[in-house]
């Protein structure tokens, strides 16, 4: 059977979650490997959430926020962007492929784009195979 990755997505309530809902109301189909967690703002995505997701065995983590300048809370998405850059470096050092973590801007009207992003990411993660986290944990312990 083909490898079916599990990807956790953190979506901000105002743009990206609404965008994902729009994909639904527009019946745009995408891969079922994504599991969404709603947060009020991408700025709420604590690095520990991302790391927790990986240690729990997620094969990928997607964070979506409003486009730069469109944040409902003015600049939460910029905060998120900074953390993202650090996180990418961090997980790489831990031995997790950086492609497994992705940050995207999805507005409330971009249901189609959201679906495309999910499909793309699922493809990428499928190509990478199951998460390296198990080996990482084994090496560490």
């Amino acid at each position, binding site marked *: 059977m083909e490898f079916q990755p599990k990807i956790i997505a953190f979506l901000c309530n105002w743009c990206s979650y609404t965008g994902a809902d729009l994909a639904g109301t527009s019946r745009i189909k995408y891969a079922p490997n994504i599991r969404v967690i709603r947060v009020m703002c991408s700025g709420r995505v*604590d690095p520990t959430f991302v790391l927790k997701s990986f240690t729990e065995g997620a094969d990928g983590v997607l964070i979506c926020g409003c486009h730069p300048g469109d944040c409902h809370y003015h600049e939460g998405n910029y905060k998120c962007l900074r953390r993202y850059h650090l996180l990418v470096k961090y997980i790489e050092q831990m031995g997790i492929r950086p492609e497994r973590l992705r940050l995207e801007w999805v507005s409330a009207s971009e249901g189609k784009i959201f679906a495309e992003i999910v499909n793309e990411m699922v493809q990428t993660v499928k190509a990478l195979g199951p998460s390296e986290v198990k080996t990482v944990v084994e090496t560490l312990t």
Partner: protein
Amino acid sequence: MEEVKIGVYVCWCGTNIAKMVDVEEVAKEIGKYPNVVIARDYKYMCSDPGQELIINDIKKLGLNRVVVSACSPRIHELTFRKALEKAGLNPYLFEMANIREQDSWVHTDRVEATRKAKDLVRAALHKVLFHEPLSERTVEINPATLVIGGGIAGMSAALEIAGAGKKVYLVEKMESLGGMMARLDLTFPGLESARDNLQLTVARVMKDPNIEVYTNTVIRDIFGYVGNFECIISPNFKEDISLQFGNVVVATGLKTFDPSVIPEYKYGQLPDIYTSHEFEGMLTSGRIVRKDGRPPENVAIIHCVGSRNRNYHEYCSRVCCMTALKYANQLRSALPEANIFEIYADMRAMGKGCEELYSLSSRRKIMFLMFDQQGPLPVIRKAGSRDKCDYLITLQEKLSGQDIEVPADMVILMVGTEAREDAKEVAHQVGISMCGNAFFIEKHPKLDPVATTTNGVYIVGSCQGPKDIPDSISQARAAAARILGTIAQGSVTVEVTTANVNEELCCGCQTCIKVCPYTAISFKEEEKVSFVNEILCKGCGTCGSACPTGAITCRHFTDRQLINQIEGLMRMDVEPELKEV
């Protein structure tokens, strides 16, 4: 310590969910988890009997947590919270799993969709374990209102509120009130005098003791929250004044499309090509003449300039068709012998009395020619000396299927409308969002067309999307109704999912203060800890993820809740730990 008792409800939504997700199986599987006292599936959870089901279970089974797995929480979270409240349970001891918009509607494999639904419900189960009762707080409403924009929408909103004896601050960027309507000669479809109707409205605004008008004024900054806003304005660009108010009406309107970017129409290159707004000026002055002073013998009106075309704007500007019919009639009267050509795509004469005006225009010998607004567009060129006209417009006429040439001495371009350049700035000041076309987004496209996701901020008129005068006025009054309602109530409930600081854990690093976009966090010098002003806090949670010691809790989205939610998503075989409240 009370035992946690969870009720799980999986909705069919008719066939919307049930078609792609085996809801019965989901309910069955989730029912196996400890603490889940009851797991049901039902056709329409949002319906009265559906809600009744929850209420009865809470009462009979003593549930103290509820998970509903149905549509997006953006649609029905409030509905179910209210149901909990009715059953005497705190409404925040509730979580929704979105298995419609983000599951059944977007997947095609029933097995995978069902698996996903189980994961999502399990995650909700894990999260709701840690939910805490939260209580809503109310804020006093300042009875004054700020209206941004002195066009017909802004003035109508102001008049409606002031008519109830409440204070209104009306701020207009330009020197005088009136906005777009001030440029119009007549209105459609009744061909009434726009000027008289506008002057009447302006006079009423100016006379109303409850309206304070600030023209030539820009808003420097707005802060505060519903019921208690404050802004800094600088009238005539002089000294700054501060105003306090409880609600904001945004009525900033729109601007017209610049046709010079369409090469086919040669606007700005040939002299007698006018935009619809320039033509209104001719109508007002009574002089419909070419640049050289001669009245035109052939006038062509081109529709959909910048609208309904992917190269410019995909949307329809809604008012141009009727305006063009109005022009055709005015031209017919002023120039009884002239040839009038109306070059249109679809005749959108859909308001009350509009189709009748279209039919009347036909009878008045106006030639209607149909073109494809998605291109190739008609091409305007200079006519030769033997052509007996100034310009020739070549186009493929769709109703006859022929390539034709239209003589013209004057061309009127029915320019579309677009969002103003400063829309983004306004959106930021008041904290509302914009759609792809830069129009402001309403709270709900159908049932709440004037409210926004920011409490106390309303959008009315064309800044929300192109619309005609009566529709703008309706919206303006709709916002007024909402505002009068809150003023009449005297208070409004505010955000409960705010952040708060555990002073024992706070190390006083002040990182949270730097990241807060609302300056809601301040530093208590004496205790050396941070403090959150919960009225200003909008609950974004940025401070929570920045706090190095975990001193900040973001209510309803706590670290513990979210981490548990992650675990719930991933640990499909592990049963949730038994927790105590």
